[in-house]
């Protein structure tokens, strides 16, 4: 493995950044799907040429795109042009319908709205695509309003896993500022039946039966701004991450607080330690050091920019609590960008690379585990997501 492919989703299209293992010289291709909001792109761990992308628009809704050649060409699965007068079977790659069937679905009730009233569930967009670790045709989609869908035919059709939205706490879930989104899906590499998801602002959930049933895993979280600070649900979890060698250890960036669980989410403890602020969005784990964790502290929920105008990634080599600022190559004055929750990733080269994108359109890379940084690109549209494939 000596190449990396960075998949960048932005407010106005997608970009693919490619380099060899040195990660010094980059080729930039794009924009793909120009003008559309590209919330997330991700490659299949089972087939590096299989990519999925979430393409959406406030005007025209949701489209799922797929590439089978590493991003050179794309298609909406099931959405090809027909030539015959009778058309072809429905292309349903952009059809996300909550399962309300009486036999296996859940009634489409309501969830809590910003003002505390109840509000109907409404599909808005796909925030996150998580391909199966073993089957290129199977992929999960985390959507807004929060629910989990799965496709087992390469994105052509999608079915809800309704046990999650139908959890008895569903009516208590409410949107965060960005909407009520299911933004994180983690598959346990040692047990494909175990799946973790996170929802803003409901919290984290775990399934141990392949997504049929779910339990909230929020014990230990404390959130001001909700009636019961230690409630079972209602926490604004921004992101969770795990190391593939140790999937029972989870790290979480919550609205405020950086948290850690050593028991697959059953209990959490705060590990914010000496961070200058424990508000932020992304969190990720070094590819080869399970106790090395990265966050990007942001001033507050009102001030979505770094403290003191200085963009700093913080690294803990001790699984939390003790954090060091990583600043070399990052702007240390007059910087007021944000780093969104899906906009950080790590590669698996021997010298682990760390990547993140900003709302100012920069994508930064560190080829030395965070010690030093450089901008691959400076001037993209606001970056929504960053994923990396090690080829």
């Amino acid at each position, binding site marked *: 493995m000596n190449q990396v492919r960075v998949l960048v989703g932005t407010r106005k299209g997608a970009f693919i950044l490619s380099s060899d293992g040195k990660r010094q010289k980059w080729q930039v291709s794009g924009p793909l799907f120009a003008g559309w909001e590209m919330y997330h792109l991700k490659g299949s761990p089972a087939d590096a040429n299989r990519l999925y992308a979430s393409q959406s628009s406030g005007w025209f809704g949701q489209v799922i795109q797929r590439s089978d050649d590493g991003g050179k060409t794309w298609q*909406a699965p099931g959405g090809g042009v027909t030539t015959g007068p009778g058309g072809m079977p429905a292309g349903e*790659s952009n059809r996300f319908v909550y399962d309300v069937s009486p036999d296996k679905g859940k009634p489409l009730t309501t969830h809590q709205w910003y003002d505390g009233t109840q509000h109907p569930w409404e599909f808005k967009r796909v925030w996150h695509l998580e391909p199966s670790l073993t089957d290129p045709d199977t992929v999960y989609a985390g959507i807004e309003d929060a629910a989990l869908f799965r496709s087992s035919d390469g994105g052509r059709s999608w079915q809800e896993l309704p046990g999650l939205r139908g959890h008895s706490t569903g009516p208590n879930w409410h949107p965060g500022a960005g909407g009520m989104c299911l933004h994180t899906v983690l598959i346990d590499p040692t047990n494909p039946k175990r799946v973790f998801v996170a929802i803003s602002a409901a919290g984290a959930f775990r399934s141990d039966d392949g997504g049929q049933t779910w339990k909230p895993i929020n014990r230990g979280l404390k959130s001001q701004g909700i009636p019961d600070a230690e409630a079972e649900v209602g926490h604004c979890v921004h992101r969770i991450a795990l190391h593939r060698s140790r999937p029972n250890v989870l790290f979480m960036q919550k609205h405020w607080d950086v948290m850690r669980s050593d028991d697959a989410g059953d209990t959490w403890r705060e590990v914010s330690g000496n961070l200058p602020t424990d508000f932020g969005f992304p969190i990720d784990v070094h590819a080869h050091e399970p106790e090395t964790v990265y966050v990007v502290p942001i001033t507050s929920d009102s001030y979505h920019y770094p403290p003191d105008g200085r963009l700093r990634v913080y690294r803990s080599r001790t699984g939390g609590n003790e954090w060091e600022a990583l600043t070399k190559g990052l702007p240390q004055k007059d910087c007021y960008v944000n780093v969104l929750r899906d906009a950080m990733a790590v590669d698996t080269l021997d010298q682990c690379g760390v990547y993140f994108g900003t709302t100012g359109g920069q994508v930064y890379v560190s080829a030395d585990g965070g010690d030093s940084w450089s901008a691959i690109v400076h001037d993209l549209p606001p970056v929504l997501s960053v994923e990396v494939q090690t080829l």
Partner: protein
Amino acid sequence: MIRVELPTHLKTLAGVASEVALQLPAEGPVTTRTVLDALEARYPVLRGTMRDHDTYRRRPFVRFYACARDLSLDSPDTPLPEAVQSGVEPFLVVGAMAGG
């Protein structure tokens, strides 16, 4: 032959460079519904982008115009103007003006 003009993003999605020409069944009315049915049958990727998959309700930021008239609020089963039915004028799918 019915002529349909799509907004830029839907042209890109459908892979067409200009106006789309649709042949509707000889019998039966030419309405917004039948035009969209034919359009979506030919370009399945457009399903869900102009109207809901199941309810067929028009998406809020999508409008339908023809012959200098806004047809968006008309019943989808209202016959389209004769000039559209005869191909003299196109049926326009328009993304609502927004965004500054």
